[in-house]
């Protein structure tokens, strides 16, 4: 019976072939490590956020007189409202954690390099959408941090040339962050996840065109690929189990650790809290904003700091494959960059003193410096590695890949010749 139904569908819609090509039989490099789990995890968290978010929206009220209380109503009165709310607020942090690891893996293994530039850039677009969604969602509880975070960030648009002040008023719909701002942020916070889903579809189409990279950094020959199911479904689900344990620890045992205490005070436009901090995932970028003494310069630096990742395909000039795995200097640079991010995060968290300002300025220079140095270092490193001799593993892989390319070329040549023959005869 089910066979007949599938047959009926397949005549009208490519169901079986789609599932076979893109899901179960999708060719995946057999050497993928657990670092390749995080794309799947990001997709999972997206579903989790959309699901909890829709149910929260059934109880939330986007009105400055009601919103703070409606969140308390969700926490106290709505059945399992506390769970939905904590899953959603923890989910935001989980989303960024997973995405940051996903990006770090891409940087470490050089997965952004040809032919995966467009895949990387669609990912960069997704990061921007995610940041915008998280920022707008943070205003909705209408606490002190919500209000002042939104005030500071919308104020950044004053840096727009000529019409800065008008742009800020237009964004807020008021002279300050107010009811109009809250309502539109709610509307857009509901819309953006669906834009993200659309962008994820584009991201996946790009992925399925160029296929996954792998820890060796070499495009593997067909024989080294295995079907996605059952090998990577099993691997992804194991990773999901580990992720869910960590996530549950936060949701059930320390949900408030990710919420600033000041956000339990209703928003007060007449009083700024003594110490305002953004959510942890924005801290490094916030530190860069604060480190530049000039306001417009700070805004530009912060915007650039998020966008710098998009330049990586142009900056990395090395032809040695395998990302940091086979490149000791790039690897060192990668770890120093992570350390610099942590320093920036710390500087963004503590109240500004002249000492932390100095540390922040040095760390900001290091942040941009590490990007600008990549082209020179990667070239020098390539020369050094070639002189020293490449490791045996990578030579074997490169040779096998070269043989495979030759074989493919030969096949194509024969096929073309076959096509041309009838023309010759006629």
């Amino acid at each position, binding site marked *: 019976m089910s066979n007949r139904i599938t047959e009926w569908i397949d005549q009208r819609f490519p169901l079986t072939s789609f599932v076979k090509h893109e899901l179960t039989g999708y060719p995946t490099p057999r050497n993928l490590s657990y670092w390749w789990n995080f794309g799947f995890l990001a997709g999972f968290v997206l579903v989790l956020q959309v699901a909890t978010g829709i149910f929260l929206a059934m109880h939330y009220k986007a009105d400055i007189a009601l919103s703070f209380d409606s969140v308390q109503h969700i926490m106290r009165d709505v059945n399992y409202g506390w769970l939905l709310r904590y899953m959603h607020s923890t989910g935001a942090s989980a989303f960024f954690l997973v995405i940051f690891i996903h990006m770090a893996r891409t940087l470490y293994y050089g997965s952004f390099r040809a032919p995966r530039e467009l895949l990387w850039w669609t990912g960069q677009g997704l990061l921007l959408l995610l940041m915008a969604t998280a920022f707008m969602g943070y205003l909705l509880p209408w606490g002190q941090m919500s209000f002042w975070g939104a005030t500071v960030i919308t104020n950044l648009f004053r840096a727009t040339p000529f019409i800065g002040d008008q742009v800020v008023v237009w964004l807020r719909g008021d002279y300050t962050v107010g009811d109009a701002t809250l309502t539109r942020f709610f509307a857009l916070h509901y819309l953006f996840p669906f834009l993200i889903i659309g962008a994820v579809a584009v991201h996946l189409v790009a992925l399925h065109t160029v296929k996954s990279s792998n820890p060796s950094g070499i495009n593997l020959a067909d024989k080294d690929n295995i079907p996605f199911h059952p090998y990577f479904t099993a691997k992804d689900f194991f990773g999901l189990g580990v992720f869910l344990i960590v996530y549950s620890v936060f949701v059930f045992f320390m949900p408030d650790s990710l919420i600033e205490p000041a956000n339990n005070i209703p928003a007060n436009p007449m009083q700024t809290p003594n110490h*305002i901090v953004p959510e942890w995932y924005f801290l490094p970028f916030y530190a860069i904003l604060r480190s530049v003494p000039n306001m417009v310069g700070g805004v530009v630096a912060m915007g650039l700091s998020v966008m710098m990742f998009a330049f990586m395909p142009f900056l990395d000039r090395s032809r040695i494959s395998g990302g940091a795995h086979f490149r000791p200097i790039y690897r060192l640079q990668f770890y120093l960059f992570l350390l610099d991010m942590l320093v920036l995060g710390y500087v963004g968290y503590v109240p500004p003193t002249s000492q932390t300002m100095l540390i922040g300025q040095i760390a900001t220079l290091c942040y941009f410096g590490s990007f600008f140095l990549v082209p020179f270092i990667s070239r020098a490193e390539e020369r050094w590695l070639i002189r020293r001799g490449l490791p045996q593993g990578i030579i074997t892989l490169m040779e096998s890949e070269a043989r495979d390319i030759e074989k493919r070329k030969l096949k194509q040549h024969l096929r073309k010749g076959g096509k041309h023959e009838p023309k010759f005869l006629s």
Partner: protein
Amino acid sequence: MEKEILGDGDRRNFLIKLTSVVGGAGVAATCVPFVASMNPSSDVLAKAETEVDISNIPPGGMHTVAWQGKPVFILHRTPEQIKAAGTSNGVSDPEPDSQRVKNPEWLVVIGVCTHMGCVPNKEGPGWVCHCHGSQFDDSGRVTRGPAPKNLEVPPYRFVAENKITIGKA
């Protein structure tokens, strides 16, 4: 004859361009109401003026009132404070004190830091913004960064000896 007209490539290209321009203008015009709907609505604009009774502010005291949803500091300055404010012109954004007040006894400034929009606290002489450490003197002028400009003076006027209207000069 008809065939010649149909085959006229220039004519066809011109019509395609013209249609695209008219269509594009239509789309742009349709965007106007959507974009404009995000600007402050009439009830928000109605908050544009605030009348304040300043008779109950003692010398040296400060009141904070809301104007357009923003805090406005009204400082009743003592003769010493007026004297101190008159001695310098500020540091990063020089401006004489006399140009920032209508009556030297009363300083009226918008209580929004010109850096990132936080509300500075009254501390010692002047104000300190706790967000990023900007400092302002008793004329609302920035004495220490990162704020680029002095606290803004809103348009206001004395409607009576003890009453001001903020929002209209």
